[in-house]
């Protein structure tokens, strides 16, 4: 009777240990975004959209061992003073060249989307995002049409990634 009780406690304890095992024990990874980023400079007349600039290689690594998807968001921010802010309406984002684990057909992209507010520039939607997938993001900018010669405008665009369930 006592021996059975001990065995019961031992089994229950083992189960608790199994249940409480760190997730690392299952090789659960993370959802991460990496890329080259960088700085780009150009000269442009007021009121005119530039060509595509600032090609940024993005690498989405999803080793969460889930079937959840992911979405990459581009967010505009004003530059550091004294550089004048372009503002989001004068910055457009495009994405493409999707390659890697997630088929390009399963990743939505954008073309010339203004960054007046944060924009989802890449998304697997409900499709799984598992594995390592790469893409390229580019920008177009427009100096305000009332700008004066020599004035310097700029912006900071930050890409982040989040899970889509």
């Amino acid at each position, binding site marked *: 009777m006592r021996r*059975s*009780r001990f065995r*019961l406690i031992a*089994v*229950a304890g083992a*189960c608790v240990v*199994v*249940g409480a*095992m760190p*997730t690392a024990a*299952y090789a*659960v990874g*993370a*959802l*991460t*975004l*990496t*890329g080259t*980023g960088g*700085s*780009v*400079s*150009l*000269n*442009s*007349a*007021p*009121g005119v959209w*530039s060509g595509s600039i*600032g090609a*940024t290689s*993005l690498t989405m690594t999803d080793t*969460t*061992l*889930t079937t*959840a998807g*992911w979405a990459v968001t581009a967010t505009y921010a004003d*530059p550091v003073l004294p*550089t004048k802010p372009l503002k989001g*309406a004068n910055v457009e984002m495009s994405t493409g060249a999707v390659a890697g684990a997630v088929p390009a057909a399963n990743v939505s992209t954008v073309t010339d989307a203004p960054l007046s507010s944060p924009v989802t520039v890449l998304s697997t939607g409900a499709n799984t995002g598992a594995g390592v997938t790469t893409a390229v*993001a580019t*920008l177009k900018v427009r100096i305000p*049409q*009332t*700008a*004066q*010669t*020599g*004035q310097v*405008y*700029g*912006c*900071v*665009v*930050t890409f*982040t*990634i*989040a*899970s889509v*369930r």
Partner: protein
Amino acid sequence: MFRSTRSRLVAAGAVGIAVAVTPMAAFAGAGTGSVTTVVTATTVPGALTIAGAGVNVGVSQAPGSWGAATGLNTLTVADTTGTTNGWAVTATYSDPVAGTGLGGANVAVTSANVLPSALGGVLASNVSTVSDVPLTTPVTVLTTGAASGAGVTAADTTLKVRVPQTAQVGDVFGGVVTYTVASVR
């Protein structure tokens, strides 16, 4: 009693296994890492341009009297020169390629409805306009004067015409009015 204990052992084991195989989706979370691109854009001189659809109008009226406003033209002046210079739009009369000219004295021009672009232009209060001014000579129909003309600004122009009072029924007259823009310093 022994069987009961064994059942409890099995049950406890089953619970443990169930916990262990809980789907990993429960561990999915927000992503980490970010990538930043910084853009620096320096302004260089652009151009001063005028654009508009132009119109082709026909009227029929008695000799010697002014007609109603016609020939509505929406003009768009784009000043991306990167300066604080102003601009002026001039209307110039010329005889038609074929047929009899009305003569500038029989064509009067009016300008109005100045509207700056939502992305930046000249306020209506900073643009002078004209009303029923004969085109005997070229007429400045819109001007910012010395004020900055930077940005994109739209305005309307219209014409009134008068058939010469000596005209015969069926005579056809015409005229061509051309709008141009120039910098004002």
